[in-house]
């Protein structure tokens, strides 16, 4: 189909190329430049070299706290969510009655995802007198101070995102269903138990989607904003003050665009480094069926 004009494809791509330039590439470069400036929107950006970064890493306690909280959040939320999504997908992969009902029920919270209404609801559910504490008391446990206590507040946001495990689950489920059933039959003839079948057959075959889900969930978790903004407002004691919240307030409340860009770049570099590590490590644990690379 490429006969008549070898640039015809580019014409179809032109909206994308324009958008890529104007809304991605240019802002990307500008953001890098801005991170070395002092810019408050009133006067032109003033180049200040590494000042912003220097201040971030030596003098800014809020930044250090925020960075730590972000890492804790990502490294708890992502593994828990993936493990839970996989566990449920494995159960849903058996022939069960009402399976469509369960799939739908598990997916509904994800569809409502980042909506403000859901964040609002979470705030009421985990209030001191909310139903989560009522349920805890119902089974004889002490109520928990979910939002007032810095050790718990971040966890409520983790719980909210765990509650939305549906899209990761659907992807796992599709992968599980595409596994050739004859592999399981062979394993069962060889007398393999359930765990060993799961570990030696299922797991290797779904590593590509584990990898995909890992990257997607990680990039998403590093950008969590609505949860802490609505549910905890970053508090108490900055215990839920994730980096995107800090960037937002520096940029759009204090109009310190240069400093906010520097924080954004630190966050970006962290995400990139972790993504590169994930891609690099994937050679050792991700198995592509029919892949002839050696």
């Amino acid at each position: 189909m490429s006969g008549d004009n070898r640039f015809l494809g580019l014409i179809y791509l032109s909206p994308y190329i324009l958008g890529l330039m104007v809304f991605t590439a240019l802002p990307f470069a500008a953001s890098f430049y801005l991170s070395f400036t002092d810019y408050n929107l009133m006067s032109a950006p003033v180049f200040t070299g590494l000042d912003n970064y220097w201040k971030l890493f030596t003098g800014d306690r809020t930044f250090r706290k925020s960075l730590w909280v972000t890492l804790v959040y990502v490294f708890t939320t992502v593994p828990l969510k993936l493990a839970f999504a996989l566990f449920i997908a494995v159960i849903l992969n058996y022939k069960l009655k009402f399976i469509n009902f369960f799939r739908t029920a598990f997916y509904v919270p994800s569809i409502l995802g980042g909506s403000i209404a859901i964040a609002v609801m979470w705030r009421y559910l985990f209030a001191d007198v909310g139903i989560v504490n009522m349920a805890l008391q119902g089974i004889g446990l002490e109520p928990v101070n979910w939002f007032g206590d810095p050790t718990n507040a971040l966890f409520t946001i983790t719980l909210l995102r765990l509650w939305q495990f549906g899209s990761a689950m659907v992807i796992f489920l599709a992968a599980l269903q595409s596994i050739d059933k004859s592999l399981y039959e062979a394993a069962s003839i060889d007398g393999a138990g359930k765990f060993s079948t799961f570990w030696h057959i299922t797991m290797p075959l779904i590593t590509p989607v584990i990898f995909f889900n890992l990257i997607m969930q990680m990039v998403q978790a590093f950008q969590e904003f609505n949860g802490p903004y609505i549910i905890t407002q970053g508090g108490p004691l900055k215990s839920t003050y994730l980096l995107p919240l800090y960037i937002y307030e520096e940029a759009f409340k204090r109009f310190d665009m240069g400093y906010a860009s520097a924080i954004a770049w630190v966050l970006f570099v962290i995400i990139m480094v972790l993504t590169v590590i994930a891609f690099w490590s994937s050679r050792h644990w991700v198995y592509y069926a029919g892949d002839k690379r050696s």
Partner: protein
Amino acid sequence: MADHVLSPNLAADQEADRILKAQRRRHTVSMILRYGVLTLVGLLMLYPLIWLIGASFKPNSEIFAGAGFIPQEPTTSGYVNGWKTSTPYTFGHFFWNTFLIVVPKIIGTAISCTAVAYGFARFEFPGKKILFASLIATLLLPNVVTRIPQYLLFRDLGWLDTFLPLWVPSALAGDAFFVFMLVQFLRAIPRDMEEAARVDGANTWQVLIFIVVPLLIPALISVCLFQFMWTMNDFLGPLIYISSVDKFPVSLALKLSIDTTEAFEWNRILAMSVLTIMPALIVFFVAQKYFIEGISAGGVKG
């Protein structure tokens, strides 16, 4: 043991029978466990939403009085008062604003992503590899890095406090995920019909519109539905770009009503929360198969 006097054959039969029964028992136990886990998780998934809907019909005094979802003294005052809002506009006005953002955004996304995906999936041209790599890179690029310069750009264009920043990037195929999803979809479709049409003298635009687009309809429905959901749920975009209350979409209006009425009128907030998630819920239940297909197509083939 009595086994000694029985014929070996009978003993073997009994043994087989015993194993079968044990298997069946194990099967029953595992079924009970599975349904148990699924029911428990299902309850945890749905109860908060059911509670939300129930509580939106409760008087304020009752909302935190018990964990049940059925109101003792049902009232629609939350809806009536919430709809009025503390602004000069009703909630209907904010729904209309949301509609004005969502509709152009969906149309722009569908058209631009289809053209771009077609370009990627069916043509060879210089720079294709680099451009496709950039598509994947944008998929992974955190928005957080580009947000500030984008804001400055829209400010210089004079677009702040308009809906343009919310939909123009999407109309230029800015949502890499959708392009990627459509490319995956197109790769799985055989090209026979397109080639036949070309032989019959159709140009590539005619092929795109009359042959490719009809084949892409299920995937395009998924794209539109996801874009609808994401836009309905988007909060940070409007928060940054929209400043006058008369242009607020529902997400900002809801945040505003929390700020102004929270301490005393919970049922207003809960009622408006229910209303803001309703369009998404209804669309989801009507078209759930497209969501589930869309997400697994985007994820698995990649």
